[in-house]
């Protein structure tokens, strides 16, 4: 019963926060809405007994990605904001497309045979061990594990290359306007 209440409260909060995140014109407020959604997701992960993922969600999404988005906002802020309309001029078509998407998804969920089946939950005290074993055991997800490392390497080099002005980082930094005023 408690789980129902927590779910209702958190999901309501998440939907409201998501609406704030995508409609607010103040970018910082939008980010805070996004952070709320991410946190709500972590709470739902706990409800779903995915404890490690809840922690990973908080560490990666809230601890790093949200920070990065806030920094990006602070870097791309105009002093005299003149944004023009917030919405693309073809918004009516987009709403039609997305409405179709929503109806399709809901129709599919409503007709999904296993939707009301009682969940068999893996409430395992060895939960994190299970996850670790599945991640690195020879018959588990070894290759994705290693490929993820290669992906992170590519992202690291690419991000450094782009963020340092598209030239080799060595030597005097490419001076940008922010750095001069700092």
């Amino acid at each position, binding site marked *: 019963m408690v789980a129902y209440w927590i779910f209702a409260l958190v999901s309501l909060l998440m939907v409201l926060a998501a609406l704030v995140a995508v409609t607010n014109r103040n970018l910082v407020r939008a980010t805070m809405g996004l952070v709320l959604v991410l946190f709500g997701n972590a709470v739902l992960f706990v409800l779903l007994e995915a404890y*490690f993922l809840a922690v990973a969600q908080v560490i990666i999404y809230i601890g790093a990605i949200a920070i990065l988005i806030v*920094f990006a906002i602070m870097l791309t802020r105009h002093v005299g904001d003149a944004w023009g309309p917030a919405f693309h001029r073809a918004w009516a078509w987009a709403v039609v497309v997305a409405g179709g998407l929503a109806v399709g998804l809901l129709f599919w969920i409503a007709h999904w045979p296993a939707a009301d089946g009682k969940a068999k939950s893996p409430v395992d005290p060895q939960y994190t061990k299970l996850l*670790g074993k599945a991640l690195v055991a020879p018959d588990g997800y070894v290759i994705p594990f290693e490929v993820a490392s290669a992906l992170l390497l590519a992202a690291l080099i690419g*991000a450094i290359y782009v963020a340092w002005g598209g030239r080799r980082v060595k030597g005097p*930094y490419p001076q940008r306007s922010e750095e001069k005023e700092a």
Partner: protein
Amino acid sequence: MLWQYVPIAIMLVLSMGLAALIVALGHLVGPSRPTHRKMIPYESGMVPIGPGMRRQPIRFYRIAMLFLLFDIEVVFLLPWAVVSRKLGLFGFIEALIFIAILLVGYLYAWKGGALEWE
């Protein structure tokens, strides 16, 4: 299983309640004589320099970006660390490969001077 979280919930409610109580008491009981000097944003007692939302130097952004990528490396190693003893040599070598690949990126960042704060 959810009962394990009751202490956290109690702490959440207590801390939020206490914070609200303190602010509310300050508003209700304390005298309010605002002057211009009192109303400016608090910046450790200094006179604030510029608006609070001015553009930040890009250095902070770059450091946050590097942090994000190495943050994920740590999160990946966590479940491995829990079972590392059971997996023996195979798991150990695997994690070594994982770290070695990312070490290349680390060296790239280091040698390129990305870790320097000018």
